[in-house]
């Protein structure tokens, strides 16, 4: 299963992913620059990504908790998601996400 990730420098990476893993974990474990400070607990908003629009309706909608946490992210768009809140599964094979600009 593949997850495509574009990093802030514009580089596109094709990552091998496993079903059941969080998108954040896949990005982090391949060593791409994602802070993911709270380790996936929806508590930090430092795993913010933009999901390509055509994949959006295959994702479960933002939970209220995710919506609230996105208030701490920057440049939030309709395609914004916290990548720790998305689990990889067969329907998401080939999905493309872009890492959002990161707070310092």
């Amino acid at each position, binding site marked *: 299963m593949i997850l495509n990730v574009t990093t802030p420098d514009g580089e596109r990476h094709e990552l091998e992913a496993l079903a059941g893993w969080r998108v954040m974990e896949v990005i982090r474990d391949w060593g791409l620059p994602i802070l993911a400070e709270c380790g996936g607990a929806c508590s930090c908003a430092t795993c913010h990504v933009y999901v390509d629009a055509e994949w959006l309706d295959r994702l479960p909608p933002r939970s209220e908790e995710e*919506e609230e946490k*996105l*208030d701490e992210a*920057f*440049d*939030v768009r309709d395609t914004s998601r916290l990548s720790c809140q998305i689990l990889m599964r067969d329907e998401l094979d080939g999905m493309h996400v872009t890492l959002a*600009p*990161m707070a310092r």
Partner: protein
Amino acid sequence: MSPDAATAASIATAEGAGPHQTDVTIIGAGPCGLFAVFELGLLDLKCHLIDILDRPGGQCAELYPEKPIYDIPAVPVCTGQELTDRLMEQIAPFSPVFHLSQMAEKLEKLEDGTWRLTTDTGTVIDSKVIVIAAGGGSFVPKKPPIPGIDAYEGTSVFYAVRKMEQFRDRKLVIAGGGDSALDWVLNLQPLAESVTLVHRRDEFRAAPDSVNKMRALVAEKKMTLEIAQISGLQGENGQLTDVVFKDKDRGEWSVPCDMLLPFYGLTMKLGPVAEFGLNLEQNLIPVDTERFETSTPGIFAIGDINTYPGKLKLILSGFHEAALMSQAAVRIVYPDRKIRFQYTTSSTDLQNKLGVA
């Protein structure tokens, strides 16, 4: 008593800037710093703790107060806040002194070998032993990635309010939807020339009472609320003139602004501990696994901040580290004392210290 009240009742905060004298200064009041008070206390060592947060608990209190923890031995489940409250209860017999809302900033060795620690608000603490329990670093405000923002920091962009007066008669833009943003909107609105609150959606996480007050001010035209996001800054020589807002329906527009206060939550940064002259490995402090001492004698590091072969960043590990560290610390404070190994279950001496004998 509510958990909050229990915590508040047992927090002794220090009066005055000192120099305070104590046995051990603990940097960081996360779970590991708190439990260190207990282990050190059983060995008669008194502690002062410093934390940049305004309450104890570290990551457990700041990042996941309501989330369950399942791997504390003999506690099948408790939340981050419950763990903090129980630790506070457990260490209460040792009367730790807290210095909250301040950053441990400078560490120097006095001639007699005492460590002198100074915080960013000027508190001075002298002790024989330093324990760094700084976890993932100190919690500091997130700096939003707005192009060019660095040039304005400290002159026109502020992540915290130290003196309200500096905002008098200024045109303020405050960003965010949580309690910090709303509290400062309400506090600064009476003295500022104008206040604009900018938030990405027309819903706020802040306390409902603050939100109602803010909406009333907007209705009375005493301030402006913009549902938008910041996309840029305009000005020169560190002085802002305008903040650029954007919204997907309305496009981009700019609003006059002298000072911007962004409140996008907190992030952890190692901060001044990096300047203490200790060895560092990828922002962690290497220690031995017998005493959890750093490369500098008398300075220990426990919890998430340290590293050694096999390290696990678990609360459980930090508790163990606190116990072994304490055995080494007492030998520094009382070099001549014979240390006996005792159980809390059966030692009258320990039970006296705990106030249960």
